[in-house]
């Protein structure tokens, strides 16, 4: 296999060279275990909060809980994408091509959806 030019398109040397030895594998399995524990604990915590704090729209407590849930979800998502899908280990170009267009579209869509639904809500309330 061509070991000097590890990133040529003409062959699949990227895949061939994406290998590691047993020592590195051991380290990776340790990371995987750590991430598993983190994901499970966050989920258990979310369920505990969800089951014990009743939803009361508009109160400060519920608003905190709600944004807490969203924050924890983003933390879980980051662990899955960066550690399980190994995006954290990829070249910067690939990270940007995956994350930037998506983020730009979605932030815009969320902004539009909130603006529009606020308007529709007001219209329904006004009759």
């Amino acid at each position: 296999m061509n070991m000097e030019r590890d990133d040529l398109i003409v062959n699949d040397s990227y895949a061939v060279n994406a290998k590691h030895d047993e020592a590195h594998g051991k380290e990776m399995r340790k990371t995987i275990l750590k991430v598993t524990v983190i994901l499970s604990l966050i989920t258990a915590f979310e369920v505990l909060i969800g089951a014990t704090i009743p939803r009361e729209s508009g109160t400060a407590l519920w608003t905190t809980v709600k944004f807490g849930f969203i924050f924890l979800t983003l933390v879980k998502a980051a662990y899955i994408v960066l550690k399980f899908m190994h995006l954290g280990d990829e070249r910067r170009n690939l990270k940007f091509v995956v994350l930037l267009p998506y983020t730009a579209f979605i932030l815009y869509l969320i902004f539009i959806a909130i603006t529009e639904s606020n308007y529709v809500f007001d219209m329904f309330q006004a009759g």
Partner: protein
Amino acid sequence: MAGHTGEALSKGEIWGGGRSPFGVTYGKLMMWLFLVSDALTFSGLLIGYGYIRHTYEAWPVGEKVFQSLPFAGDGFPLIYVALMTFILIVSSVTMVLAVEAGHRMDKKGIIKWLTLTVIGGLFFLLSQVWEWSHFIHGGGGYITTTTGQVYHLGHLEEDLHANADGSYQMPEHLMLVQNKYSEGEATIIEGAEAVKIWGTMSDYYHGANMLRNEYAPHAPQYANFFFFITGFHGFHVFSGVVINLLILLQVMKGAYDKRGHYEMVEKTGLYWHFVDLVWVFVFTFYYLV
């Protein structure tokens, strides 16, 4: 990893042609781009859900709607969904272990972990079937009075028996509930008062479909989004199980051993993790908040 080796290259070398600027094979890059487009689809569904929900004043509370366990009955808020989430997380872990084994060309390890991943996916699908069946059947239904008031019924051992004229026989122990699925403390009406309300009943409905659902009598979209979001996700899980199974067969046949690398396992792994990733968001936005 392959990506690291190219990090020190100059801009001209990276973009000058003859190599991938992204440091991955064509197949892996395309898998990532597909996942981005699929993520946009799921985000569209979830944001659409948020939009519709935001136009209503009242919306069912997740932990009140989803609080049953198979064989155990009611009173376990979110436990079943948490279990489903956990199954999916675990199957994601076995998948990443299969990918790791692939990087060591450990065929036996891949077969072991990939088999467990397929089993985890099947478990999730079966859980989904129970969840859907329970959601569609409902938990007692609700009545509408001639004055337009809505009262939910307490848990029923069996479905109400319909009379020949279309009305319903009153259950032996009549229990009407207000705020059964909505925000606030649930209030229970029993005895003579409940019978009096039952007398003014104009309509009875239980369960859920695309037109009506007992969880949000005012908002059919609540059930619509349940079916579409969890259904679309469930279809992805189903495809994932089929793809994983096909890859597993290829691994067993030794096709990738001959090829010299197990990147196919890595690519199908990306897809499988994505399915887990989507569920994390569905769990938060449909069940928790």
